[in-house]
């Protein structure tokens, strides 16, 4: 596997895990940081429509879907890895 793709997939898994296991009380705060990142992942994958705002408890699943779409788009994902890493470190 391409090392950039592998790094992105690893970082995506880490962020998704964090979001899916996060206490409900922390999710609204996490959403403040996560939603703009989801917008960027969608933009990198070539989506032109805004990412819909859904319930905070679905942030992890939404991140997983958008990350997978970026991987499937074949677009370079090194920036995505860096962004997800920074997000993970900033999450509450």
């Amino acid at each position, binding site marked *: 596997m391409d090392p950039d793709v592998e790094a992105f997939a690893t970082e995506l898994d880490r962020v998704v895990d964090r979001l899916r296991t996060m206490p409900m009380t922390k999710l609204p*705060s996490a959403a403040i*940081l996560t939603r*703009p990142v989801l917008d960027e992942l969608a933009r*990198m994958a070539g989506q032109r429509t805004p990412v819909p705002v859904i319930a905070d408890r679905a942030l992890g699943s939404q991140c997983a879907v958008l990350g997978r779409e970026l991987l499937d788009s074949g677009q370079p994902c*090194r920036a995505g*890895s*860096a*962004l997800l890493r920074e997000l993970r470190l900033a999450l509450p």
Partner: protein
Amino acid sequence: MPDPIVALAPGVYRIGTRGNFINSFAFAEPDGSITLVDCGLKKAPSAIVRGLARIGKHPHDVGRIVLTHAHDDHLGGAAEMITAAGLKGAAMHAADAAFVRAGTLPPRDRSTTSGRIFARLPDRHYAQFAVAEVLTDGQLIDVAGGLRVIHTPGHTPGHISLLHESTGVLITGDSIFNIGSRLTWALSAFCTSYEQSKSTAALFGDLDFEIAAFTHGPEIRNKARERIRTFLTRRGARP
């Protein structure tokens, strides 16, 4: 649905345009007019109008719109609000006004991996609007007793923070986020200069304020100045 408008001080309100994820602010004048700070994303005007209605105001009451910086989550709804208010345009710092006049967005920080790659992506689009007033560092805008402009570049070149001196409300803009009980910087990928954004936020440590309000996140009402100063010191932005 949470109340879209929260009173911060007499005549000063926070309007959550996506919960408290993206905030606008309203300053009520004694004559009944409103100064609006930031306009959120493209679809934010409906939340702003709903918030204004809760304090008995209509978009026609908005006499001035101030934008903290030229990112689409702050100016996406500007064109619609300017039209609804019947204004000629918005007020913002000259450095970011240049991007709005060109119909572009400020560059990303090329010292970061993500910033370099994002720079190659096409800009997000937003509805065009006029800049009717250019703001400068230190300027006291004639708003509800005076709103001080503090140029805090880095997040964007023309990023400003605002201090309402009479009520002690500081609007940090995107210099600092409040994610729940924790203060943090904006992610570097969304800054023009991440390092500069952190260093100019240090200015907050020298200001007098009672309430810290954020464009992203809920306000801090208790020991706000102390908490901001502690954050800046711990993150190495001030000694």
